[in-house]
């Protein structure tokens, strides 16, 4: 009995201590994949967060920022939802952030909506996510945003007959639909479409079929991982001539590690994306240098999503004077504009989604290294899916 009393007393003391401490802190629950198949994107987002906090200190509007990291371990909406609940209810988080994967972000959106907590989607890129909680903001991109303008761009630049090949899951279907809409609206013709299984190893059958359809452009949507390199190599093996057939895709097709594995097979691939470490601006050069000094690798789209996500949180807290009320925060962030390493970006005051520049890049050899060289851009791109559904 006495032991139980002591236990209870010390628990009460502990409780008092934490709530006293909570006066001067803003707790941010970061929920994403720190382990499993998607551990690498997770660690890049986390690096972006860390670098921002290192450069800007851990105190905003007189309050100390405290991160509480939770590992959702991959595609696991139930886990992401539970962790988001726990971090709010048990750990007392004021803001939830992270969310690398669409299913996880969708599940956590309910929590944000019900608890009226500010939520920052730092990566998950399916358009619909943002509509699921009025307290959510996105600092990455959407698949529709990038790929519809790529379709339009393709037609303007001479592609008349396109073939699409996409990974057979949600974001792949989005990419396919967005590209086809942009391309067809501009006047192009789709000569064939195929979806490949997410766990596909060998791409020669799919690419041979694409080649045999005689298109002058092949659109590919691929998630990261080992597949971009396999695709790049197979295109060369099959003898598809990139001067005659434009190979186009979303930025993952030519991300850093993929290019390293592809070697010269990557030359000439065209991608549309919102960020690359090779983006030429003073701000980005500094960002890349600082990132390399800290983590010994280049930042990528995940890093910049985490970095800008933290920027949005910091600036919003400054505007509210440290007030962490969900409504106050979301009102403060609407219409916010800033210069990011990726270029100018803005939070759409209507949809709370990101408005940014989409760059068209081609893989070229610069100083003996393969890089994505930006040669065209489309400014102030809004998510077209929401614009269409809002009408």
């Amino acid at each position: 009995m006495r032991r139980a009393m002591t236990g209870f007393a010390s628990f009460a003391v502990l409780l008092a201590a934490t709530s006293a401490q909570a006066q001067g802190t803003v707790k941010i629950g970061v929920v994403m994949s720190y382990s499993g198949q998607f551990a690498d994107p997770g660690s890049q987002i986390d690096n972006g967060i860390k670098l921002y906090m290192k450069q800007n200190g851990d105190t905003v509007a007189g309050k100390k920022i405290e991160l509480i990291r939770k590992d959702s371990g991959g595609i696991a909406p139930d886990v992401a939802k539970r962790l988001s609940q726990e971090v709010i209810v048990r750990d007392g988080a004021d803001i939830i952030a992270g969310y690398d994967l669409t299913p996880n972000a969708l599940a956590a959106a309910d929590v944000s909506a019900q608890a009226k907590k500010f939520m920052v989607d730092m990566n998950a890129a399916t358009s619909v996510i943002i509509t699921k909680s009025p307290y959510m903001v996105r600092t990455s991109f959407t698949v529709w945003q990038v790929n519809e303008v790529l379709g339009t761009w393709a037609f303007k630049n001479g592609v008349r007959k396109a073939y699409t090949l996409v990974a057979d899951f949600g974001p792949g279907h989005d990419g396919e639909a967005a590209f086809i809409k942009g391309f067809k609206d501009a006047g192009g013709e789709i000569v064939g479409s195929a979806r490949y299984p997410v766990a596909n190893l060998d791409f020669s059958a799919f690419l041979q079929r694409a080649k045999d359809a005689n298109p002058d452009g092949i659109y590919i949507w691929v998630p990261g991982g080992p597949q971009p390199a396999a695709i790049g190599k197979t295109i060369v093996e099959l003898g598809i001539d990139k001067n005659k057939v434009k190979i186009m895709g979303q930025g993952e097709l030519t991300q850093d590690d993929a290019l390293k594995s592809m070697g010269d097979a990557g030359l000439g691939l065209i991608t549309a994306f919102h960020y690359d470490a090779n983006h030429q601006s003073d701000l980005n050069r500094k960002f890349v240098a600082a990132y390399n000094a800290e983590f010994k690798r280049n930042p990528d789209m995940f890093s910049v999503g985490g970095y800008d996500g933290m920027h949005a949180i910091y600036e919003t807290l400054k505007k509210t004077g440290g007030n962490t009320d969900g409504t106050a925060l979301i009102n403060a962030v609407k219409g916010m504009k800033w210069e990011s390493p990726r270029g100018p970006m803005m939070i759409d005051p209507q949809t709370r989604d990101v408005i940014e520049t989409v760059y068209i890049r081609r893989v070229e050899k610069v100083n003996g290294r393969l890089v994505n060289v930006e040669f065209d851009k489309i400014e102030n791109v809004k998510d077209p899916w929401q614009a269409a559904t809002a009408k």
Partner: protein
Amino acid sequence: MITSVLGVLFDGFAYGMLLFLLSVGLSVTLGMMNFVNLAHCTFAMIGGYVSVTLMNGAGWPFLATLPIAFLAAAAISVAFERTMFHRLYRASDLDQCLLTIGVVFVSVAVTAYLYGTSQQPVSLPNYLRGSLHVAGLTLGVYRIFLIVFALAVTAALVWGLEFTRFGAQIRAAVDNQRMARGLGINVDAAFAIAFALGSGLAGLGGALAIDMVGLDPSFALAYLVYVLIVVAVGGLGSIGGSFAAAMLLGISDMAGKYYFPAIGSFLIYLVMISLLMWRPSGIFGRR
């Protein structure tokens, strides 16, 4: 029309050989030794990382890394076999599953700790890149290399296990331990060597596979399903069976994806199910 059929056959055969090289080691450990070795792809991953480290860190040529990949995976597997796995040779399948899948998870975490979670870059020498044009067909050079390599490995294994004294000892030790001991065969050593052989082959397969399938810490889990399918369809304990199964699955997978892309990815499972319904113990199954 004819060229597209031949192209599909060639690519499918090469893909099958890739599957075969990845799984032939398992047909030794699971097939012959009857040990449910779910950690097979962990040893394949070790081979892959050894090869990548030697290439990128020490500047070795790709081909020279292959024997080291084999030896490293074999050596590490013997350490595992002597300390852990040999205790479970007579345990139930479930115990073996639990131990080896645990090893897989540990290996994924250790690899992520040592190498980070990103894809490892693999750069092949120029003579293994590109493609040859033969009679209207475009044949990838690396695919030709895989096919030749797989045929050589098959021949060496069949010869080593079926026609040598050492092969006979291993088969005897696996089939009837007590009898083999009674005849003076060092069963422990035979098991250790057989296990090392299986894992070494896994390491070799891993090193050969990374150019086509990439390499990151999830490798240990990602390709487990495929190697299990190959060994199950081929028939436990049959090298020739694994070869035939890998070839069949590779070609049917490729043909399915080329001619019916909408259902192509499912075809490999359909083939597996129908083959196993026709011959439940595999094409060349003995038990």
